């Protein structure tokens, strides 16, 4: 037995020993959260923090969409509406009325809630593909209104945030928002909150209603579940956290315009995070974000081209090399397209479900094979 073989055997072992013991999962989560909390202390490069913030934002967006799309099965492709309404409301209040974002956020959430109720009442009368189309149409209407209502929203020029007032508690300045660190913790809190919301929804009565609606609307209805009520509740929860993600995005980036916070591309991106990771699961969107953010950032930062050059696949001086270097960075959305096609065709349960299956198969093979000497690695508590 070689060491590598041991390690290989260890992965499924650890995972399978974790399964069925929720207490240990909580331990893993606690360790990960502690590591994430300590991360800014060890990370000096702003780019590293930026990447993590993008990751948190993607997790929050994916988890928010998961409530309505994953558990309730209503594939809204118009979630940019809530994202955009949230960020526009907060940034407009801050920029034009000098309302601090921690007050503006409440107004923005009310606005997002109103929009979600409006969209819900219109779109939930429709089912399946018609619902998808209607959700896109409503989001596009909102985008076009924001784009054309120039005196109110500053139209296509968007809103450039001057600066965020320092957050003070009494006389003590908690943060002046000048570094990336406060955004890191804010993003982490947002991601963890959305994750917790998903967990709570999934394990509540509401979650069971939603999953019943997802599996068979008519059957759920005949069992006495009020379809439009629970769909609207799910959409409202989803919309509130999508709006929070939008607010976070607006404050962090400091600039919003209709294409960046209200475009169809953004709505599609939220759906794809869930689909690629694993739809309707707690950690699916986390996995989706973990796959998508590094990949698309690698393309954006031209790391992929550099890797190709380093591996000697393409020469930097050649025509193809120069072309790739110049243009591949613009095509970071390409990765979303390729991944979603691959996932739909080959991994119907997303990357998370696919990995779980692989692990399960590995564990089964392991238990069928003669037991290697891994007893000593089982940890002090044993099984």
């Amino acid at each position, binding site marked *: 037995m070689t060491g590598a073989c041991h390690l290989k055997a260890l992965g499924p072992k650890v995972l399978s020993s974790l399964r069925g013991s929720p207490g240990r999962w909580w331990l893993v989560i606690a360790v990960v959260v502690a590591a994430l909390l300590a991360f800014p202390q060890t990370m000096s490069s702003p780019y590293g923090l930026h990447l993590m913030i993008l990751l948190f934002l993607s997790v929050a967006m994916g988890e928010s969409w998961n409530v309505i799309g994953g558990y309730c*099965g209503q*594939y809204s*492709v118009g979630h940019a509406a809530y994202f955009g309404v949230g960020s526009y409301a907060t940034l407009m209040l801050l920029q034009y009325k000098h309302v601090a974002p921690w007050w503006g956020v409440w107004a923005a959430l009310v606005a997002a809630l109103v929009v979600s109720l409006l969209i819900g009442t*219109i779109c939930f*009368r*429709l089912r*399946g*593909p*018609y619902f*998808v*189309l*209607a959700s*896109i*149409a*409503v989001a*596009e*209407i909102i985008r*076009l*209104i924001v*784009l*054309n209502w120039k005196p109110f929203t500053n139209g296509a020029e968007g809103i450039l945030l001057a600066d965020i007032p320092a957050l003070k508690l009494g006389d003590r300045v908690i943060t002046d928002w000048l570094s990336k660190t406060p955004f890191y913790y804010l993003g982490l809190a947002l991601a963890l909150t959305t994750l917790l919301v998903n967990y709570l929804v999934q394990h509540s009565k509401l979650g069971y209603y939603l999953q019943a609606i997802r599996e068979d609307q008519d059957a759920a209805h005949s069992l006495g579940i009020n379809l439009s009520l629970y769909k609207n509740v799910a959409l409202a929860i989803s919309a509130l956290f999508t709006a929070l993600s939008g607010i976070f995005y607006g404050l962090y980036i400091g600039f919003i315009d209709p294409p960046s916070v209200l475009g*169809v591309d953004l709505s*599609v991106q939220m*759906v*794809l995070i869930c*689909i690629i990771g694993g739809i309707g699961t707690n950690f699916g969107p986390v996995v989706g974000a973990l796959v998508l953010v590094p990949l698309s950032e690698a393309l954006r930062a031209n790391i992929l081209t550099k890797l190709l050059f380093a591996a000697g696949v393409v020469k930097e001086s050649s025509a193809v090399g120069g072309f790739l270097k110049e*243009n*591949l960075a*613009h*095509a970071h*959305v*390409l990765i*979303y*397209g*390729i*991944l*979603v*096609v691959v996932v*739909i*065709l080959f991994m*119907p349960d997303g990357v998370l479900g696919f990995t779980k299956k692989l692990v399960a198969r590995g564990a089964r093979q392991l238990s069928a094979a003669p037991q290697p000497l891994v007893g000593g690695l089982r940890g002090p508590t044993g099984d």
Partner: protein
Amino acid sequence: MRVFLQSAASGILIGGVYALVGIGLTIIYGVMRVINFAHGELLMVGMYLTWIIFTWLGVDPIVSVALVIPLTFLFGAFLQKSLINRVLNALPQNQILLTIGLGLIISNVVMLIFTSDYKIITTSYSSSTLNFAGLRLSTPLAISLAITSAITTILYLFLLKTDTGQAIRATAQDRDAAQLMGINVKRMSVLAFGIGTALAGTAGALVSPTYYIFPQVGGAFTLKAFVIVVLGGMGSVVGATLGGIVIGVTESLAAVYISSGMKEVFVYVLFLLVLLFKPSGLLGRSRM
């Protein structure tokens, strides 16, 4: 009144092209029950093909339709065989996501090859107008309406009179029954996706003298194509033709009387109203 007639006339002209896009989408939906979210991107491929043929070979965009049709047909047939065919029995959401992913791939690959610079095709008649019963019509759009009408007529005849056309309609009516009658439904699906793509590609070629050509141009057309198809009743070719004209005229009138930036808002509002109050479309439940 004159302004009204003038804008209604230009609405009908652009509506002809919209009809072509809508018919393509409705045939694909009718035969396969797949909602093709990459339809606008297929149109964009048609635009780029026309641009290539125009810049490299110097062929006029109108003439190049003859080349664009077979090329986009083959492209569509290839997409159907390699990708769409695998999800025919999948959940509708998954089909939608697959075509969304496909659209992203197509537009990003085009962006990789041609960059996102705007391209234009300038022909001698690009900005010329012609007089028709006292109305001034844009020449390229008038020509495109003539070609659109010809293609639509040929398509109707093909669907109504030929054996293959009847087989396509039978597949659209009831896939299983058609298969039991000995129709090769797989072949019909490939054919339908090819025809749908070719129609989108043709529409792309026809609008290329009047539109900017860039990789993201497809998105707006995709949504408009859905509006057209839902308006006319999913799966109805006659409905899509009518829907195209209605959308063209609505847009044109809204642009003149309200604001050109808001014209699409009215299209989407109209769409929502139809979805809510007449979900089977203007022409009821007819299919093809």
